[in-house]
């Protein structure tokens, strides 16, 4: 009776050990697969964060090298262009002023000529008048002469009239040319002033560009540090998930304690039945094939 009971106890211990070991391995496998799946997700996060960090570092290095050189060069080109434009305008205005003064001089010549023509026209009119008087004095014989005198008088009047128009035109031009020169000089002054103002505004742009560059640098550095922290957290999280191995190992220790108990009971009770005695530990299953190796065991290749 006692022997039968002992057999049952030992048999139960063996069954429990087998079942426990199977469960240990199963749980270990399930948890390891879950951990590895989570680990893959963390690795993807880590990879994306690493790629982003590398891009940020590349951007920062590029920004440090280039700085605001490109912007400064563009600003300088604009300044140079504005200065050149201002000089060209000034040159053109100066040429225009020279031509205006030459024109004034020529107008003066025209005015003088007009005065002379007026004097000549007056003299011709006087001459025509005298001719008419003489023609009247000559009577019939002087008629053709009188006609010529009348024509001369008419021509003299027309010349006088045309000369008056030329004189007025010359006077008008003489009055307006100085105004034109004055306006041209005003344009030149405004052009120079515009170039100076443009320079100041473009320098403001350069200053803003430098501020922007510093802000970008700071943002890149902050982003770099933040992603570094994300990477560190991901690695730590992955490490923390590795709980199933030690848990399974502890459960195996329990099994080994049960094995030791089983053998001790058999020795104590002098159990000879091979079915009840746990087999001695075979350290290496050297003859076991890859397909036959069991959980907890080793196979050498």
């Amino acid at each position, binding site marked *: 009776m006692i022997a039968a009971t002992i057999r049952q106890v030992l048999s139960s211990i063996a069954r429990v050990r087998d079942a426990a070991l199977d469960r240990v391995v199963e749980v*270990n496998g399930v948890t390891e697969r879950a951990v590895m799946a989570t*680990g893959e997700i963390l*690795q993807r996060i880590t990879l994306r964060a690493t790629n982003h960090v590398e891009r940020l570092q590349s951007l920062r290095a590029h920004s440090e090298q280039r700085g605001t050189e490109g912007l400064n060069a563009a600003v300088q080109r604009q300044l140079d262009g504005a200065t050149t434009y201002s000089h060209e305008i000034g040159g053109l205005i100066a040429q225009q002023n020279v031509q205006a003064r030459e024109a004034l001089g020529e107008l003066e010549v025209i005015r003088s000529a007009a005065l002379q023509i007026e004097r000549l026209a007056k003299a011709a009119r006087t001459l025509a008048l005298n001719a008419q008087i003489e023609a009247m004095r000559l009577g019939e014989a002087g008629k053709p002469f009188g006609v010529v005198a009348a024509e001369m008088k008419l021509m003299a009047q027309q010349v006088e009239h045309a000369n008056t128009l030329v004189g007025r035109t010359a006077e008008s031009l003489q009055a307006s040319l100085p105004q034109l020169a004055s306006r041209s000089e005003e344009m030149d002054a405004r052009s120079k002033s515009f170039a100076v103002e443009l320079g100041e505004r473009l320098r403001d742009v350069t200053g803003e560009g430098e501020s922007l560059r510093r802000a970008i640098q700071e943002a890149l550095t902050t982003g770099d540090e933040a992603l570094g922290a994300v990477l560190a957290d991901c690695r730590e999280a992955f490490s923390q998930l590795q709980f199933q*191995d030690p848990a399974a*190992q502890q459960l*195996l220790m329990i099994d080994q304690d049960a094995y030791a108990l089983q053998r001790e009971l058999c020795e104590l009770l002098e159990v000879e039945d091979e079915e009840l005695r746990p087999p001695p530990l075979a350290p290496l299953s050297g003859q076991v094939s*890859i397909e036959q190796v069991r959980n907890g065991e*080793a196979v*050498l290749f």
Partner: protein
Amino acid sequence: MTGKKILVVDDSASVRQQVSLVLGQAGFHVIEAVDGIDGVEKINGNDDLAVVICDVNMPRMNGLELVEKVRAGNQRALLPIVMLTTEGQPALMQRAKQAGAKGWIIKPFKADILIATVKKLAA
């Protein structure tokens, strides 16, 4: 046999600790690596290693990749490497064998099996 240097490569600190404890009590000197890349560096930096015990599933470089890299380096072609893993697929074991691994232990490991395996390979 005692005092021989063993490298354990596993991304789990607990497993490294357990293996170090078991082998340390058996008289071995154990050093640790946290993943495959760290493992390769430790292998290249320690000419007196007797055996390497290596997990399979690790970030950055897994255990099979570590074996392939070490064997490709020629200098450590004879260094025994044993895989210690929960994986029990015959295809993986075959791949490890072809890559040059010397053995395969399925977790959770039994202390006496681990010790016997290391002793046999370190001899």
